[in-house]
């Protein structure tokens, strides 16, 4: 009986054009490894948006500050899951922390991730929410009261001085946090960019491109969440906030697009040996995912829409619709970007003489159902976080007075 993997591989053999090294028929990094940088990108982007408030004092975006932090945390918690599922031996994954190989970018990234999670994100959320958690826990039922007490580490000090200290810490952590967020997603780019064996990946620009596409997707995600959750709570969308977020999204998309255009022009101009097979790859295997989805729908169209919004004065309703559609297109585009990098880089042979194919399963760990589940899970985690740590408004001042004696 032929195993299902072998069955797939026999079928793939027929789709090979030209010559590939025989071991290259199996595509090693599939949909799960596409989902992973997509999720961590959203983390970095959401955090950068949040840091705009604290470090650059962009007042308009204040109302989504806590939401961005919670979004970042929700996605950060789920992001290791696709990696774990993808490993041949997930039960040995602790070895990355116990016996890391210090020359391996993947191993070192584990520590960067842990640093970012614990020292930056968790601490920042803790300091932001501490006072409110203490005040909320006064008036709650048993379960929520104890959850809040534990999260606040049983702290009780809500004096003016301690709140000032909290604010100072938040600012300090955000200042450390911005380069940490850059490191977090830039590192994922480095994991690909440092592979000299693969000319589609090996590039100095790779960490930068990853970072800026992360920022783009993160800001677009917060816009989407904000636009969906706010009306569902019966609140009115703050147009100043939305316009400001969209502005930052616009600038980020311009930078991202310029970087990708630069990479494209550079490759064509230098015309190294790999240009023939890579052109073949882009025109044949990646035409839809790169040409149509990533560039046209994911970047040019939203860019054009946002330029139009800046040039012409559309009314609030039209702007909301356009922002919403653009944000969705951008998500699709950035997901396609990850796909084109990860899967695209394995579609051509390192002999530069042939192309192969990737067949995505439906079920199983590497299947599309699992990928969709992993994309939905962070939202479920976010819903739980929003329940425990509501980001909408801080605790009322009257409670403050009730406690201070």
């Amino acid at each position, binding site marked *: 009986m032929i195993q299902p993997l072998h069955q797939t591989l026999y079928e793939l053999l027929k789709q090979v054009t030209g010559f590939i090294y025989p071991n290259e028929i199996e595509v090693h990094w599939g949909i799960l490894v596409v989902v992973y940088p997509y999720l961590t990108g959203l983390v970095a982007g959401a955090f950068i948006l949040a840091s705009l408030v604290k470090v650059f004092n962009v007042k308009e975006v204040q109302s989504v500050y806590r939401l961005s932090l919670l979004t970042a945390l929700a996605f950060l918690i789920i992001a290791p899951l696709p990696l774990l599922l993808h490993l041949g031996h997930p039960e040995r994954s602790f070895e990355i922390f*116990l*016996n890391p190989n210090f020359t391996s970018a993947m191993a070192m990234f584990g520590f960067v991730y842990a640093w970012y999670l614990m020292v930056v994100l968790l*601490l920042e959320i*803790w*300091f932001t929410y*501490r006072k409110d958690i203490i005040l909320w826990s006064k008036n709650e039922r048993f379960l929520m009261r104890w959850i809040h007490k534990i999260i606040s*580490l*049983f*702290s*009780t*000090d809500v004096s003016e*001085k*301690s709140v000032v*200290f*909290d604010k100072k*810490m938040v600012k300090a952590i955000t200042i450390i946090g911005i380069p940490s967020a850059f490191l977090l997603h830039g590192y994922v780019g480095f994991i690909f960019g440092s592979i000299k064996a693969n000319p589609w990946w090996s590039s100095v620009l790779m960490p930068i491109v990853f970072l800026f596409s992360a920022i783009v997707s993160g800001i677009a995600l917060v816009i989407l969440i904000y636009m969906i959750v706010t009306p569902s709570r019966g609140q009115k969308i703050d147009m100043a906030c939305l316009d400001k977020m969209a502005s930052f999204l616009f600038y980020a998309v311009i930078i991202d697009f310029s970087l990708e255009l630069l990479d494209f022009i550079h490759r064509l101009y230098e015309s190294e040996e790999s240009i023939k097979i890579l052109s073949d790859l882009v025109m044949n295997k990646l035409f839809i995912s790169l040409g149509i989805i990533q560039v046209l729908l994911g970047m040019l169209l939203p860019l054009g829409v946002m330029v139009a919004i800046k040039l012409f004065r559309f009314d609030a309703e039209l702007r909301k619709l356009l922002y919403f559609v653009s944000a969705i297109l951008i998500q699709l585009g950035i997901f396609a970007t990850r796909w084109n990098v990860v899967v695209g880089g394995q579609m051509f042979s390192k002999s530069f003489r042939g192309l192969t194919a990737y067949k995505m399963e439906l079920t199983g760990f590497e299947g599309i159902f699992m990928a969709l589940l992993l994309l939905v899970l962070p939202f479920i985690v976010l819903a739980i976080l929003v329940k425990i740590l509501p980001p909408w408004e801080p605790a009322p001042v009257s409670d403050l007075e009730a406690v201070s004696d």
Partner: protein
Amino acid sequence: MKKFLLKLPEQAGRLLIVFVVFIALILLVRFLLPASLKDHRIHIQNTVAKEMSRQVRYAGSDVCASCHDEYNLKKNGYHKNLSCETCHGTSKEHSENPTEVKPVVPRQRDFCTRCHAFDPSRPTGFPQINPSVHNPMKACVTCHNPHDPKPPNVPQECQACHAEIARTKAISSHVMLECTICHEVPTQHRVAPRNVKASIPAEREFCGKCHSTQSNIKETFKVDLATHGEKYLCWQCHYPHMPEVE
């Protein structure tokens, strides 16, 4: 130290405690773990030892010699560079248990043609035959002893071994030329082809016998040897077996 701790805001103190506990846990884990889980040198040594103790399946040629006479037959024939196990497969088990475990003895035709069927990518000089023409249906071992595979009869025609050249020449303008017109072939060449080689012409004038403007031969293409091709020998441009190429 105590003063500093007292001056610290209450929440920072709590965080510090959590932080210290966390670091302590990490250190505890690192120190309590046995070295075999942590020390990379032990891992390497264990892996190397494991790798070295894998089962050996191919015995190696010299092992066969201790029991089998065919080895002595083979070592002077055309198959002297072949390992016994190239044809007989894995034989380590057989060498340890000669009566119970026997290696394969391939006698079917398609076994030999795997190496000896003509393939244009094979290096010239490697003995190849066209299986559909060379005694089809007959097992190779009927005429060739695999341990001394010299042909049963000494080849009479050049194309018995040089079929590709013969094929090429057959559709060229040199089709009517016998090989021996250009090449002097000692009789020993048919028996020990690698030791005794045929000769090739050494001068332009050799080709000039037919192709120079002074030649008496009527049907050939003529050139003025004094001016055509400068100082080159003719076959440095023209392939003698297919001279039509530009």
